[in-house]
């Protein structure tokens, strides 16, 4: 008997749960990063980042996060391959149906996010965790923190880096635009009154999250 891990419906179920987890993660990630442009110095950001780096609960969540991304990516890839195989002979003239624009480009935006993830992890995560390219800084509380904020600000002084981030983050926004409401539909949550609300929330979420992340490199480039 087909089950939750092998059936079409089950695979989407797992994907949507992993996706919703990532959606929550992005809110947390953005709320920490945005302090870089909300406050004069990166002190708040560095303290938060250090807390996240040392807290055992967060460390476990980091493993869950990477697992979630991997699961989402692997299942996404498997589903996409099956979807392509389901139509071996393509139409000559197609895609004239009126559907949500971004839903047609989930694969494209997924590839953009994957490229972004590689660049982003190489840029900050690897440098911070493994290469030790981050200096220490001591604040008024007498404690020493990794000055990750300085690394970020330094990186976003380079014009093309900022442009690459902005363009790739737009891809993330497009992915989120369809995926937020799609995840609810996959979980079977469709309702006459609430579904339009979820769709509106998804649009707001994708604009706020993508816009928020995009504003960070842009503001740093021009103001810091």
């Amino acid at each position, binding site marked *: *008997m*087909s*089950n*939750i891990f092998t*059936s*079409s*419906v*089950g*695979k*989407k*179920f797992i994907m949507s749960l992993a996706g919703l987890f990532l959606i929550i993660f992005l809110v947390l990630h953005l709320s920490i990063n945005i302090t870089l442009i909300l406050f004069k110095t990166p002190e708040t950001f560095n303290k938060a980042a250090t807390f996240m780096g040392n807290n055992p609960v967060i460390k476990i969540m980091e493993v869950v996060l990477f697992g979630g991304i991997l699961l989402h990516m692997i299942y996404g890839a498997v*589903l996409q391959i*099956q*979807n392509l*195989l*389901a*139509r*071996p*002979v*393509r*139409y*000559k*003239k*197609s*895609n*004239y*149906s*009126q*559907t*949500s624009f971004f*839903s*047609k480009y*989930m694969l494209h935006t997924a590839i953009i996010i994957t490229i972004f993830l590689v660049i982003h992890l190489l840029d900050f995560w690897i440098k911070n965790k493994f290469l030790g390219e981050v200096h220490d800084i001591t604040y008024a509380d007498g404690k020493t923190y990794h000055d990750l904020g300085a690394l970020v600000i330094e990186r976003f002084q380079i014009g093309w880096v900022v442009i690459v981030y902005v363009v790739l983050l737009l891809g993330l926004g497009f992915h989120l635009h*369809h995926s937020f*409401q*799609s995840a609810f*539909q*996959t*979980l*079977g*949550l*469709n*309702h*006459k009154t609430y*579904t339009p609300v979820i769709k509106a929330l998804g649009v707001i979420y994708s604009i706020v999250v993508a816009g928020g992340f995009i504003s960070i490199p842009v503001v740093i480039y021009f103001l810091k």
Partner: protein
Amino acid sequence: MNITLKIWRQKNRDDKGKFVTYKLGDVSAEMTFLEMLDYLNEKLIREGADPVAFDSDCREGICGMCGLYINGRPNGPRKGVTTCQLSMSAFKDGDTITVEPWRAKAFPVIKDLVVDRTSFDKIIQAGGYISVNTGAAPEANAIPVKKENAERAFDAGICIGCGSCVAACTNASAMLFVSAKVSQLALLPQGRVEAKERVRAMVQAMDELGFGNCSNTGACEVECPKEISLSHIARLNREYFTAGIT
């Protein structure tokens, strides 16, 4: 009016197939799309050529036999109609119309525009029924049904199994069809008895037959001639998960 048709011609399952262009004059806006094809075929037969094969039966939108992919959309440009209900008034003089068969691994082309939709029958055979002993029909009002559920079941039950949803879907997914069949029975007390086994068996059959997965793009809902709602897909998902947990 004068129109140009680009029609997919394929001799049999194994033939590679190709598009053939036909110019057709004297087409009336009052013809249906299938009458226009009949008209073309009469002309082809008179010329001694092989007429274009296409499916149809009732020609009034209730049997689900017809169904052509017209100018990039199932059943052409109008909403809520089958191909047999499509009027040539949807087109204008000088138009070029591309006509293709449904494209899906699970719907192989038999000839020209005719595809084999036995896959849908197999999905129904997997669980799209209720098991009752035959005999005298029971009193219709003996089992109470909530009015709302009766209406929803009816909305799902009007699916004619034409395959427009599969044809419209970028993934060639059959989820709208399967969800309509699952919903129709899941909403009624007679169908609840076998609900769990039904949803699992029908999803399994759908997967094994090589249909794609649902990406929630909503193309099926837009193109369904009976305008069946995506909410049935959500119900199928719910039914599937609760069948797995309980």
